[in-house]
């Protein structure tokens, strides 16, 4: 039985005409990891996945499965399982024949094939559909057949290309959990491609955020969300308030950033990952849910506090989304779990406050 492998990309580059679809990609994906390529469409994440599957050969660099170089091994010899966005179930074959395909290619004896297909279908809870055609199944069921077809060959790595994007919202969340459970149970090295940041945060052990063919940041979901490395990551992953300013003062426990000569925001050193000096231009971001609203000014001097006016309020059940106008800026605020707490109306004057630890400095690149 093939073991789950680690996947290593060394300085990978792929060019289409003048444009590099991916370049300078160095990644080391651990055995059993759930690793996500996250980025907007056209960022090169699918190209990377297709290079690992062998449909595209890199123009630069090397790909390793464990320590074996596979950059130019054809797809049918790689033993990495791929699940396509559109499932790619063969319409002229029954569910059984679809799932059995990879086993037959591997010359598995018939008895064994029957047992393994039954097991795989049971695993995705589709026992009894063997004789049906893919077109007779629902979208969610087709998705699970596609998964079973790939898992049944016990691939060395599982590659998933936006597998949930064709499902409706509720089913997507269910499949997310089901997929994670399968992955953990089987200990599969999984590489997942998505443009949905929420999905990436919820499922991954690590995420590589990609932009224009380059990997911008690699880290755990927490690192990516809480310490975005640049403006792009801060804007792409989750919502945030992003301001540009200049470093005005350096103090012992915090530093002060001046924004457009009218607003000074304090950031704790503990949350500053980048190297800064006095006078530097810099971005700072504050997550909407880190900001509290109060009717009147309060709190110690060290806390950031801005007076503003509510210009929009949207009730969303789990939270209320506010937009404030303050010091010439628009500020997004999420009031979490609003039940029983005061709410504010359009036009009301409020104070927005947030801890200096919640301010993240991002270098201007």
């Amino acid at each position, binding site marked *: 039985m093939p073991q789950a492998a680690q996947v290593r990309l060394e300085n990978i580059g792929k060019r289409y005409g003048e444009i590099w679809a991916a370049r300078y990609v160095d990644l080391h994906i651990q055995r059993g990891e759930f690793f996500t390529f996250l980025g907007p469409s056209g960022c090169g994440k699918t190209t990377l996945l297709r290079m690992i599957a062998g449909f595209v050969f890199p123009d630069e660099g090397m790909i390793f499965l464990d320590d074996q170089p596979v950059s130019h091994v054809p797809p*049918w010899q790689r033993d990495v399982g791929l699940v396509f966005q559109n499932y*790619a179930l*063969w319409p002229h074959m029954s569910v059984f024949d679809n799932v059995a395909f990879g086993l037959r*290619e591997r010359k598995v004896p018939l008895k064994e094939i029957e047992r393994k297909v039954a097991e795989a279908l049971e695993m995705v809870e589709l026992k009894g559909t063997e004789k049906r055609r893919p077109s007779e199944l629902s979208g969610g069921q087709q998705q699970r057949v596609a998964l079973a077809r790939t898992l049944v060959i016990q691939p060395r790595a599982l590659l998933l290309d936006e597998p949930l994007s064709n499902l409706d919202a509720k089913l997507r969340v269910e499949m997310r959990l089901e997929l994670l459970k399968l992955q953990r149970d089987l200990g599969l090295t999984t590489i997942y491609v998505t443009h949905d940041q929420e999905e990436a945060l919820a499922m991954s052990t690590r995420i590589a955020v990609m932009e224009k063919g380059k990997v911008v940041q690699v880290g755990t979901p927490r690192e990516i969300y809480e310490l975005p490395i640049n403006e792009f990551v801060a804007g792409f992953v989750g919502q945030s308030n992003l301001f540009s300013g200049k470093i005005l003062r350096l103090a012992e426990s915090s530093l002060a950033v001046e924004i457009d000569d009218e607003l000074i925001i304090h950031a704790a050193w503990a949350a500053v990952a980048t190297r800064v000096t006095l006078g530097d231009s810099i971005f700072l971001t504050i997550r909407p849910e880190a900001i509290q609203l109060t009717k009147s000014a309060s709190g110690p001097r060290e806390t950031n506090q801005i007076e503003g006016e509510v210009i929009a309020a949207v009730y969303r059940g789990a939270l209320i989304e506010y937009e404030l106008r303050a010091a010439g800026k628009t500020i997004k605020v999420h009031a979490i779990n609003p039940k029983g707490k005061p709410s504010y109306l359009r036009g009301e004057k409020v104070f927005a406050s947030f801890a200096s630890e919640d301010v993240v400095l991002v270098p201007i690149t």
Partner: protein
Amino acid sequence: MAKTEPAPRERVDWWQGSTMTLLLLILISFILYPILRVLWVSLSEDRGGLTLVHFANFYRRPLFREALVNTLWSGSLVVFFSALMAVPLAYVIARYEFRGKLLLQTAATLPLVIPPFVGAVALQLILGRSGMVNLLLMRWFDTNIPFMEGLSGVVLVQTLHYFPFIMLNTAVSLSNIDASMEEMAENLGAHGLRLFRLITLPLMLPGFIAGSLLTFIRAIDDLGTPLMLNYKNLLAPQAYLRITTIGIHDVDGYVVCVVLVALSLTTLLAARKYLSLAEYATTHRGMPISRPLRGNKLALVLILSSVILGISLLPHLGILLLSFSKVWSFSLLPTVYTLDNYADILLRAPHFVLNTLLYTLLAAGFDVLLGAAIAFLLLRSRLRGRNLLDAIATIPLAIPGVVLAVGFLRVFHGWNFPVVDAPLTSTWFILVIAYTMRRLPYTVRASYAALQQVHVTLEEAAQNLGANRLKTFLKITLPMITGGLVAGGLIAFVTSCVELSATIMLVPRIEMGPISYGIYIYMQSALGRGAGAALGVVTILLVSAGTYLTHRIFGGRAGNAFRV
């Protein structure tokens, strides 16, 4: 705002209802009824009862049995040889990108612009007993090969004419296969020939089979080719000969007609079934596969394609040479060149060309009107009888021209039609009617497809913003379907230009004959062959112009027009 509150639903229904009634009346009079009359004659005995005795007689006559077997055999051979030419071309065109691909694609559809009976004459000159090739063979090896004798001549001509049908259908099927279908198989370990056999072949098969069946229908329906080659032992020429030599009351002719219809109707139904299967290959929308082709592989592909296409363009070459020749007999190439042939057909007997333009343009116009009305009712009304309308409008695909013509003669001969005050069969209008009915399925399909693109919500949005029904139709629906209507009309025009099997039976007087009839008449005498060829060249030009325009409007989807 209107002061009164009319009941729009009722008025619309009344309007749709009367259109439907009128359409049904036309289709029943000119399609269903004539065919049922043919069937009736073949099934009735002298005293008026039902009988199968005529069919038993048919089966007892060796001549007819042989004609039936020959028809099936030659149709199958045409399909077989066409497939040999068409499938490699389709694969290359659907799967590879290379320089000269567009040229190859265009050349591969050129056989469609030459009417098969014209091609038959041209091939006689090149491959016939005293044609170019056999003269060379005689000179060098003192032998000859009877390419064009008997059945093999018919099969050869029809193969070279009809193989694009298989090619276009197969190519469409192939390019509809989503890339992920094959990539998934590669991912699971299959590649090369095995992958082709397990995945690609089954997915392209429906298109291939549909194309093959279509070719089969066309081949057995073709009357012109056997007549030109003087090979009469097939069903279509038998039906023609019985009716024209023995007479309109000869029951055997009708029996042959019914057997022909049974054959092509069965084939059509089979083709439909396979095409509905073919739809499954297109349910996923993704990128089709197209790989660049270079080096030795490219050279091989180009050489192979050139050979196939070179052979299939022989008729064009032959007819062009013949049209400029004064004398071409027992010599490799014409011995004396002249422009007289063109002068002949354009100055002395221009009516052939003019008649064709008149008849086919009228027929195309009627087809567009009828097709659009039928498509509209099929898609936008909930009237009962829609399915009947659809069914009758589809029937002509499976009705050989000879059979429709026999039906027309049976029904409209011998009584004065109102308004014209003469039997319809003695006016040229009968030809327009025959063309209109035979090509109606094309415009119905084109209009249906075009109208399908106009989602009801697009019309509703216009109405919601204040446009009334008429304005909505003029500003939203009509502009969106115009392309489809024109393309459908062009196909009707092009295919009517080369119609011979109904024409040859229905032309009331020689001066009322269209171009195809003219070619047939000219070709009967050795002296007229040059002029006949010149008419053939004119036909090719007409058809090319129509086909070119269709491609311009339909774009890459032009191939769809030649599907079932």
